[in-house]
């Protein structure tokens, strides 16, 4: 090979598809390669190699661009449906309203960082309650483990944003530039006006979609109608524009340009999923016991002594990852099942039973290979465990939520000085009591002190409440900090056991009578 440092693989190995010398593609890129005879009308054989074909593997290989071919079928329809649902949720969610009363945002889903609060419909999470978010993440993770144990990377194939947007971007590409063959031809074609406008329009639409994507995301962080108005009038906070730019660019880069590279190289999940499924998980699999030995098949030829796979490589060209499922389970496979749709179409055409590629388990494939029947084992210890854990965590969270306190009291003792000697010989300590009222109404709290100061009744003085009752009013959703002085007269000092005595502040809600206690200490000089 040349000294350019490139891999010593014949470049012909990369030539994908029948656009080469032996067959041109007529019509909409769907014509057959005319030679040894056709397997069935409409069946095209593709001269293509999986991007990760075994004897071609290198640690560092230049990217081979994948141009997935259009496919029709059950799973493709399912994917369209999922895309509509996912995008619908994503774009509509910030516009849902939720009445929380006056002075609070009425956006159902809002991440209000300015006020350090998250609003998820009826849930309201304050900064110090962020652990609820952990709970939500734990449940999501368990859910992901469960579906992975049941059916491998289905999340990746249908619901992952990377998949949804890539799918959208590919369909835009197909709409402008045509299907796989047309795109390959365009890629190789010299730059002409036709190529230029097709490529630029594709990228322009991608950027528009990215802009809409980034735009929708910022609506989750600020009142959507207000922000939309601000965007139109150009008065939105500059940070909104910055994030709009960041989200737009990352959507364009990841969904439009990087595509399968994200799933294969950037995403950790393919590495982790290996531990998440087992021999009994339903994975998109090629039923080798039925398909092999594979080979071209001419219409009318016998099927005796050969497999059902006619080696047409439809399954390879439709794969968004560019892999060949017939090579067995692979890290790259996102379980999108498009190869199932593609092969089923072929099987129908050549008159063989469907599902040569299907969701199946390694265990069943192996048994079938030995000529035995095997059952599905969807309920296994690990799936059972996940199914039990999910409701447990949900129950814990619900319990925690129902018992969530709408009041936070903290007491901070002055450290400098630890205590102050008064002119009458008594000793005074200073405290800061912080009362956080999480209810949406004003509440009144009576503050009192509980011993045991060994029969000593200290005097309490609260700055700002001098003279009157020690009752503090805290306005809705707010925090009030109070300076409190506790003094022990000289005669009582001697009765203190130690230079550190335990005392307890009691904050009583005058509305519902609930008491919150906070222990702290009273310090006096060592005697």
């Amino acid at each position, binding site marked *: *090979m040349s*000294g350019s*440092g490139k891999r*010593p693989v014949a470049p012909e190995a990369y030539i994908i598809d029948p656009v080469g010398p032996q067959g041109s593609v007529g019509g909409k890129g769907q014509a057959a390669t005319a030679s040894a005879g056709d397997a069935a009308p409409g069946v095209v054989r593709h001269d293509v190699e999986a991007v990760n074909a075994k004897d071609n593997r290198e640690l560092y290989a230049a990217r081979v661009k994948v141009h997935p071919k259009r496919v029709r079928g059950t799973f493709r329809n399912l994917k369209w449906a999922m895309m509509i649902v996912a995008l619908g949720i994503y774009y509509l969610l910030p516009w849902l309203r939720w009445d929380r009363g006056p002075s609070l945002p009425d956006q159902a889903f809002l991440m209000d960082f300015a006020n350090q609060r998250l609003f998820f419909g009826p849930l309201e999470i304050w900064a110090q309650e962020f652990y609820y978010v952990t709970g939500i993440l734990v449940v999501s993770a368990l859910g992901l483990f469960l579906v992975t144990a049941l059916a491998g990377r289905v999340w990746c194939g249908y619901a992952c944003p990377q998949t949804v947007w890539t799918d959208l971007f590919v369909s835009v590409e197909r709409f402008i530039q045509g299907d796989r063959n047309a795109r390959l031809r365009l890629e190789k074609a010299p730059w002409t006006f036709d190529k230029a406008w097709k490529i630029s329009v594709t990228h322009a639409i991608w950027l528009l979609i990215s802009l809409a994507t980034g735009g929708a995301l910022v609506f989750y962080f600020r009142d959507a109608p207000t922000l939309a108005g601000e965007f139109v009038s150009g008065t939105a906070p500059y940070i909104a524009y910055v994030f709009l730019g960041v989200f737009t660019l990352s959507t364009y880069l990841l969904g439009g340009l990087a595509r399968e590279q994200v799933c294969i190289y950037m995403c950790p999940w393919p590495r982790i999923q290996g531990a998440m499924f087992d021999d009994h998980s339903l994975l998109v699999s090629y039923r080798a016991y039925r398909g092999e030995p594979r080979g071209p098949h001419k219409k009318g030829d016998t099927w005796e002594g050969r497999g059902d796979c006619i080696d047409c490589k439809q399954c390879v060209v439709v794969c968004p990852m560019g892999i060949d499922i017939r090579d067995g389970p692979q890290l790259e496979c996102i379980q999108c099942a498009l190869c199932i749709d593609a092969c089923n179409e072929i099987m129908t055409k050549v008159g063989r039973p469907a599902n040569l590629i299907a969701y199946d388990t390694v265990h069943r494939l192996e048994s079938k290979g030995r000529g035995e029947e095997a059952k599905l084992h969807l309920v296994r210890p690990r799936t059972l465990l996940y199914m039990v854990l999910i409701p447990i965590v949900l129950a814990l969270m619900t319990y925690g939520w129902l018992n969530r306190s709408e009041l936070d009291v903290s007491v901070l003792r*002055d*450290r*400098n*000085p630890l205590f*102050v*000697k*008064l*002119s*009458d*010989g*008594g000793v*005074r300590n*200073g405290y800061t009591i912080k009362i956080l009222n999480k209810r949406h109404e004003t509440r009144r709290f009576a503050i009192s002190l509980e011993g045991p100061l060994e029969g000593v009744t200290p005097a309490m003085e609260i*700055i700002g409440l001098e003279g009157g009752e020690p009752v503090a009013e805290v306005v809705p959703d707010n925090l009030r900090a109070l*300076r409190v*002085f506790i003094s022990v007269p*000289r005669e009582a000092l001697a009765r203190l056991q130690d230079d550190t005595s335990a005392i307890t502040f009691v904050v009583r809600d005058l509305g519902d009578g609930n008491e919150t206690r906070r222990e702290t200490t009273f310090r006096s000089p060592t005697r």
Partner: protein
Amino acid sequence: MSDRKHVDEVTGIETTGHVWDDDLRELNKPLPKWWVYVLYASILWSIGYWIVYPAWPLATDYTRGIWGYSQRQVVADQVAAAKAAQGDLRKAIGEAELSAIKSDQRLLNFAMAGGNAAFGDNCAPCHGRGAQGFKGYPNLNDDDWIWGGTLDEIHATIAHGIRNSDENSRQNAMPRFGLDQILTREEINDVTSHVIALSGGTADAASAGRGETIYADQCASCHGEKGEGSRELGAPRLNDAIWLYGDAREDIVQSIVTGRGGVMPAWNTRLDDVTVKQLAIYVHSLGGGE
């Protein structure tokens, strides 16, 4: 090293020509081109940077760049802008009565923050960061005030200081009863006993009794008949539990022998009026204000 290009047989890749242990060779896998270009771009960028911004130190000066950028100036501008932003509040504090500041939540917050900062910069070295005081430096958290603990009295003390050359400064001096031989050793001892008894401490009754007359003659005019002190004269209360110079017998003896007298600067010569007001509010709020 040979002149001939060596190509690795297994991978078909040229090697760098480096050989170790007879046959160990290094494949020539250069950095990706884009990476190299990024390096070149960074070099170009840094040259542009030298031209545009101040960069190289010279013997007495530095290259100033063509944009006239100066970080020092930026900071100065920012400080000025911050001051200007506080302008309204500072103006309001400058004009308002101390008591009015205290009852206006907005001014109070600003005064407390400014006072706290100014206290840390100016007062903490003597009075401590928590204003807890040290021997000879009063604790500002307690309820004992030698010169008075109202807002105005505290303000006057901070503005003019104590025993300094400011013409409005608090002035007084306790006689040096020992050093100037006004009292004998025994008399000092006796009057010490009396003072200890005044503040509720335990002292030899006979000695205290003898000291009572000496106290009435020498001390009562400033410290009061019963040791109640005098704020006009800045004579500390003696019948309470707070002792600026310590409550041990030898501390009190030394006070009488040398006639102590601490000095505090007049802060209005160093700080602006607004800051002094903020300090008065802050000190008053520490817990002992009257």
